[in-house]
């Protein structure tokens, strides 16, 4: 099980150039969910990088247009919604998909009004995430 983000970053840096797909980033504080998503993507030979919080993602990752970032709305420290705004404001911004296990009123409260970010609600199945990775 991956406890830290660093080894995963390494994985994607090593594989990035060998695959035609963009990189899939996961920002999720729950260690099991983070690991399960990473395992699932790796089993499909997709390159991915997982982060436990928004701060480490912003400092270590450099997402591009072909990439996808799955962001849990309920993050410690930098809020998921703030992270989404920051990433969406990047030049060459990647596709962003929010994930949440929260009740609807919290999601609508937290998600910036103007954002058109799709939200996948937990519990989820792999197809709920993979639908955003079709090229």
């Amino acid at each position, binding site marked *: 099980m991956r406890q830290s983000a660093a080894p995963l970053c390494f994985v994607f840096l090593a594989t990035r150039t060998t695959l035609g797909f963009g990189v899939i980033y996961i920002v999720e504080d*729950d260690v*099991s*969910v983070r*690991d*399960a*998503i990473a*395992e*699932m993507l790796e*089993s*499909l030979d997709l390159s991915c990088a997982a982060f436990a919080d928004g701060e480490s993602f912003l400092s270590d990752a450099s997402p591009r247009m072909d990439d996808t970032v799955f962001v849990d709305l309920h993050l410690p420290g930098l809020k998921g919604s703030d992270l989404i705004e920051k990433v969406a404001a990047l030049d060459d911004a990647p596709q962003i998909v929010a994930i949440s*296990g*929260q*009740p*609807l*009123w*919290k999601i609508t409260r937290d998600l910036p009004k103007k954002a058109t970010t799709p939200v996948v*609600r*937990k*519990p*989820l*199945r*792999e197809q709920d995430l993979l639908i955003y990775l079709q090229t």
Partner: protein
Amino acid sequence: MVSSSCLHSVLDTAVNGIIVIDDNGTILIYNRACEKMFGYKSAEAVGKSVNTLMPSAIARQHDKFIRNYLKSGTPKVVDIGREVVGRHQDGTEIPIELSVGEAQTESGHQFIGVLKDLRATKEYEERLRVLQSNLVTMTRVNALDEMGAAIAHEVNQPLTALMLYLQTAARRSKGADQPDEALISLMDKAVVEAERAGHIIQRMRNFVERQAPQCIGTGLATLIDDCLELVRVGHEADDVEFISTFADYNYQLELDSVQIQQILVNLIRNAGEAVKGQPVKKVVISVETNDDNVFVKVMDTGPGLDKEAVPHLFKAFTGTKRRGLGIGLAISRSIAQNHGGDLLVEPYEEGKGATFTLRLPVNSKATS
């Protein structure tokens, strides 16, 4: 001796309306409080019949009331008082608390009425009632919302991880050089079960978020069998007999199967608890239908329900069980009502156990 002007001043100072009539019902005295209550000025009212101040249905009978009393001497309102309805000049009906006294005077028999305007009280009571019922609803919804959200969120995380691990494992075992068919079958079953758990959470969340039930055609007999299967798991050692007498496996009903299953499992499980320690331990599920409704009955051979307990059965947080919040039946009834049905308990019969009836409407699309 009190002077006439002093008497008038007393009348006009009184907070309550005061009216004096003669035995023909003609108004002799009509104080200031009455002017406010009925809209008529004293000068307009005095000399008129007191019937003017009543809705027509009562006004028509009032003369008779007076005659009857004078003849029989049996008071209906004199010295008793009652709540009556008056009529304002503009036609509005006014709830009034009326007390009536009488006096024999030189000029004949007179009646004295003291009137208290109940409008403010009534409005207050009504508002209080609405507030209280809102509060009950709010408390229930909030408790559900918070609890549901807490459970959903706590269970969501491991469930999400579980689902993804299982799907990944299933894919890996399918892609192996020598696929183990038995293992693959087990993995697929595990995925289905994880999905079912996910559905329950989603339904619970939907319930809280007040979304309409997701109705699809469902075989009622199979649904009942599934419920029994679920309940039997916990009762293997208790030798409780769970029986369904409904065997029409072609009977389809438009309903949200997860929600209805929740109700039935709840009812059957309660019934299973109730028969513990009884000489006959039996829970029977039967189905009756008519043109408009399907009635699913859950009968047990338990001691039956206490008469005192029945009115509180469906209220949240009033359960008598040590475990749980006592919201099971309250939720179940709400779900049934969301489906346009209801959840009822049959009246107690000596020597019989309890029977709960789940009524569900037969939709036009439902077929038999």
